[in-house]
């Protein structure tokens, strides 16, 4: 196709007569409440023995150290990631990005770029004017900024050319006239200068979201306390840094159908937003998630490249690939929010909490992203594993002229957890109580409710505390190691999925279709997004367990909107719990049909039928009454017809009865405890984390290898945030403006190497949740939380300085070591600890 300048509103060349007749989808198709699902549908199937147990007494697949279904493809280099896709006639797209932190776009002249041979199209914000955003109430982003750029690196135009090289050359020839505007670079500036409005969709100045919630009587609680600790904490922003940069390949075919491959972790939400922004109906769009090279929340919403690749494909009639450079990944961001947190925490002399008061400011960057949820999560997820009689939080998220923050592993609650667990350490010191014992005394228990109305089912936190205390040799180390070495402890909880979809609707959160046939092979279809955590494998393990199949005889087809039923995607640690439950139901439905078939044939009860290891038999007479599962499938197919089943998951109604009360509500919570041992070099301020002991209650470990991998990866990531990572920006200077990323590369944004990472020991605790698939809960995010406060607390034990500000970099540690007399504080802390006999109370009341 020839070079073709575009005009605003142009949706590309007409392809067929049918395409204009279907409306694009902008919102939920069924207004909430109008088409309520039947009671029957909402009720999960009632399986004899519940859903926590093995189909026949003992597990044959679940809980075993199995390989992952895609493991060999990955280790042999055969797995296909988005950038491995090359289509015939494919063009390469690149995005033009703003060189100003905040500027009005006055004009864009692409004529010189379009004149370059091999440049096929240039699009700007006027070609994709529709606003989108992951949260339906805060849609404030455009694929390309139409009127204003809001951070250095904000996308404003896109080109498609024969090669990446040419696309890059073309970008340099696009002339943009900017009118620079005052830039808001931090929380205080955002609040002090509402007139420097970053985001026009904000109703009030630079406020993105404000939440104030109070449960119980906080002030009286604090007044009645024997001790109140007050502290201010700063959590520096950090970013996900998956090793795979974002990549999308779009192919708009002559029938008017768009196929988009993208390194996304939310194919379903991307599908909806593509429809909205491109003006194409969802049934004319197929989103496919290839193998994804890491995400950690950084690929959990639509990004400019997906819309632009699609639009450029529509405009040129050719496939278009856009691959972000590493630098662009830093601009795409959506990482951990910088947070300033002020806590007042009250306690009685017996070590029980009385009241907690939190005031939190959140630096959101230029757009909303999941910010509404972040703001709630910053308060809502603090209320377990410790019982709090009274709790108040006041959280404010503001807009600033920086790349947009969003959900990074442990979304919203990692920062407050850091602050709060440090508060607990200070309280323990104030009442001279062992900090593990203090945590035990405040344990909220299981089958209970938190102060803000979250329903807690299973809770293995005490076992987690016991496990890390034992494994680390805590009793011989805390307040006993020589100056420079120390241990610290922290705990946490996290959600296993949220109880609502991001857009209100009454449809299932997760669906599975299972196909069996006479070949003896099973195929599971599910929209779930495997980003390396192993959700594809979990599907296969469940089917193998229920139907007695070899893992190699199961194919998982996932995250392809044409082929798979909707699953909402890989965020909020929902996959194992929700997909697992959906899959369990689908598999058990077929298992039941098979069992009934065999029971009828053998004249025994269906409960006697066992499917395991490729064999179907009856427990009554396993020698004579047995056949291969393949034959069992064939007999069942002959009896009932073609074999297939569906399962879905929809969470029960949960949450507190107040505005925002459902945010943070989850069908199950995971719990973690960690002990960290550190060594501090007093002449350099360098902290070396020697070892992290991680105990995590994941309900039941469907795959111990995967659970340990999540625990280790989480602890590693927390350790990295604690000691070295920070996504920061250069302030304005005499010869340049503000907002330049401090170093958008893997050289300057330093993530730990194999030599920096401490020894990690994972201890799995299984509380067996009544509602999880076989009792499983999440493992991918919870174990990150305690690493950071545990390290901070260990540093205090080692050298007597409090680390209330992240990261605990050598310059910061050294400067703390030079203030006051930390060694004296250190000596005091231990003498008080031993004087009151705090050690003797380790057994608890």
């Amino acid at each position, binding site marked *: 196709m020839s070079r073709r300048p575009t005009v605003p509103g142009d949706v590309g060349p007409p392809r067929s007569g049918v395409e204009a007749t279907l409306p694009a989808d902008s919102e939920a198709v069924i207004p909430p409440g109008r088409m309520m699902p039947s009671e029957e549908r909402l009720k999960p199937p009632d399986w004899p023995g519940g859903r926590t147990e093995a189909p026949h007494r003992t597990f044959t697949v679940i809980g075993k*150290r199995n*390989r*992952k279904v*895609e*493991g*060999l*493809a*990955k*280790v*042999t*280099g*055969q*797995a*296909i*990631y988005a*950038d*491995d896709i*090359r289509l015939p006639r494919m063009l390469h797209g690149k995005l033009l990005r703003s060189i100003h932190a905040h500027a009005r776009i006055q004009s864009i002249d692409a004529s010189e770029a379009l004149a370059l041979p091999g440049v096929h199209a240039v699009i700007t914000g006027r070609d994709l004017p529709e606003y989108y955003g992951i949260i339906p109430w805060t849609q404030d982003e455009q694929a390309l900024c139409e009127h204003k750029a809001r951070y250095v690196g904000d996308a404003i135009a896109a080109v498609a050319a024969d090669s990446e*090289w040419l696309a890059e050359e073309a970008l340099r020839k696009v002339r943009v006239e900017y009118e620079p505007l005052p830039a808001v670079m931090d929380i205080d500036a955002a609040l002090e200068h509402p007139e420097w409005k970053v985001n026009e969709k904000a109703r009030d100045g630079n406020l993105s979201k404000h939440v104030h919630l109070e449960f119980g009587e906080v002030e009286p609680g604090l007044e009645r306390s024997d001790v109140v600790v007050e502290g201010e904490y700063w959590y520096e922003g950090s970013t*996900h*840094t*998956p*090793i*795979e*940069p974002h990549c999308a390949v779009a192919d708009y075919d002559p029938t008017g159908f768009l196929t988009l491959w993208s390194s996304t972790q939310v194919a379903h939400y991307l599908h909806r937003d593509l429809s909205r922004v491109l003006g194409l109906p969802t049934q004319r769009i197929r989103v496919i998630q290839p*193998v*994804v*090279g*890491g*995400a*950690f929340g950084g690929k959990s919403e639509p990004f400019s490249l997906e819309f632009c690749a699609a639009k450029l494909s529509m405009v040129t009639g050719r496939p278009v690939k856009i691959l972000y*450079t*590493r*630098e662009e990944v830093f601009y795409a961001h959506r990482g951990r929010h910088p947070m300033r947190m002020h806590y007042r925490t009250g306690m009685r002399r017996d070590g029980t909490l009385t009241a907690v008061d939190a005031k939190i400011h959140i630096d959101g960057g230029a757009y909303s992203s999941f910010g509404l949820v972040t703001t709630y999560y910053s308060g809502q997820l603090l209320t377990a594993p410790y019982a709090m009689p009274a709790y108040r939080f006041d959280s404010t998220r503001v807009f600033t002229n920086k790349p947009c923050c969003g959900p990074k592993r442990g979304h919203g609650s990692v920062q407050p957890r850091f602050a709060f667990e440090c508060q607990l350490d200070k309280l323990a010191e104030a009442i001279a109580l062992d900090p593990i014992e203090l945590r035990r005394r405040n344990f909220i228990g299981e089958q209970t409710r938190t102060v803000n109305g979250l329903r807690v089912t299973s809770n293995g936190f005490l076992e987690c505390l016991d496990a890390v205390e034992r494994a680390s040799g805590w009793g011989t180390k805390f307040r006993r190691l020589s100056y420079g070495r120390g241990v610290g402890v922290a705990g946490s909880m996290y959600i296993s999925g949220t109880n609502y979809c991001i857009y209100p609707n009454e449809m299932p959160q997760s669906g599975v279709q299972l196909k069996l046939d006479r070949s003896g092979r099973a195929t599971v279809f599910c929209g779930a997004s495997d*980003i*390396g*955590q*192993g959700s594809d494998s979990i599907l296969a393990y469940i089917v193998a367990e229920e139907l007695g199949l070899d893992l190699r005889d199961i194919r998982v087809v996932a995250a392809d909107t044409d082929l798979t039923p909707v699953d909402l995607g890989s965020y909020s640690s929902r996959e194992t719990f929700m997909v697992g439950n959906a899959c369990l139901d689908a598999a058990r439905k077929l298992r039941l049909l098979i069992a009934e078939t065999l029971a009828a044939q053998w004249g025994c009860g269906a409960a006697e039928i066992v499917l395991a290891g490729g064999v179907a038999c009856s427990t009554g007479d396993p020698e004579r009454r047995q056949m291969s599962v393949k034959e069992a499938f064939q007999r069942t197919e002959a009896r009932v017809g073609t074999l297939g089943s569906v399962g879905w998951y929809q969470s029960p109604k949960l949450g507190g009865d107040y505005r925002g009360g459902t945010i943070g509500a989850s069908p199950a919570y995971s719990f973690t405890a960690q002990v960290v041992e550190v060594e501090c070099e007093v002449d350099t301020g360098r902290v070396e984390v020697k070892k992290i002991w991680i105990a995590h209650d994941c309900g039941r470990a469907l795959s111990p*290898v*995967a659970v*340990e*991998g999540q625990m*280790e*990866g989480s*602890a*590693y*990531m927390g350790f990295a945030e604690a000691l070295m990572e920070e996504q920061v920006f250069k302030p304005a200077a005499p010869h340049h403006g503000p907002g330049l990323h401090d170093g958008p*590369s*893997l*050289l300057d944004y330093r*993530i730990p*190497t*194999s*030599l920096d*990472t401490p*020894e*990690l020991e994972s201890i799995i605790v299984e509380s067996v949740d009544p509602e999880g698939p076989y009792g499983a809960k999440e493992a991918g995010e919870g174990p990150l939380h305690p690493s950071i406060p545990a390290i901070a607390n260990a540093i205090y034990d080692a050298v007597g300085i409090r680390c209330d500000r992240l990261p605990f970099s050598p310059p910061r540690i050294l400067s703390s070591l030079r203030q006051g007399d930390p060694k004296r504080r250190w000596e005091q802390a231990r003498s008080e600890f031993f004087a009151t006999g705090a050690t003797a109370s380790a057994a608890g009341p």
Partner: protein
Amino acid sequence: MVCRLRVNGDLRECAVVPHSTLLEALRYGLGLTGSKQGCDKGDCGACTVAVDGEAVLSCISLALAFHDGPEITTIEGVAERGVPHPLQDALDVTGGAQCGFCTPGILMSAWALLRRNQSPTRAEIAHALSGNLCRCTGYTKIFEAVEMAAGRMRERRAAAAGR
């Protein structure tokens, strides 16, 4: 320009421009997409391949520097007749590959290590992999995998010697 590369035991020709990196030649010229690009410029190690048995970064190597040159081994070339290399098998068994994107690079660094050191210590493994960033695993299971593979390779050699 034509670039003739010795890759995985084959002599392959592909069209390149002077400014093609070895990684681009492998991935786009020869379809060997196993080697990955993660950082653009030699900071992450995902593009690691072996050149005459030594690990190098293909994203900052110029393709023409390898024209008619040394033997290049990529992730696609370490399995023998379709049987996974012990390192590949061990990474799969231990869960050393989560998202798998750094895996080809990690594997090639480990492969180069095991060629010159049959019994590496944990510290030697960590050292050999220190130019390969992994964001998923915290490295623990990768270390286990390399140790497991080294053990199996030693057993295999001992068995072959005893036969």
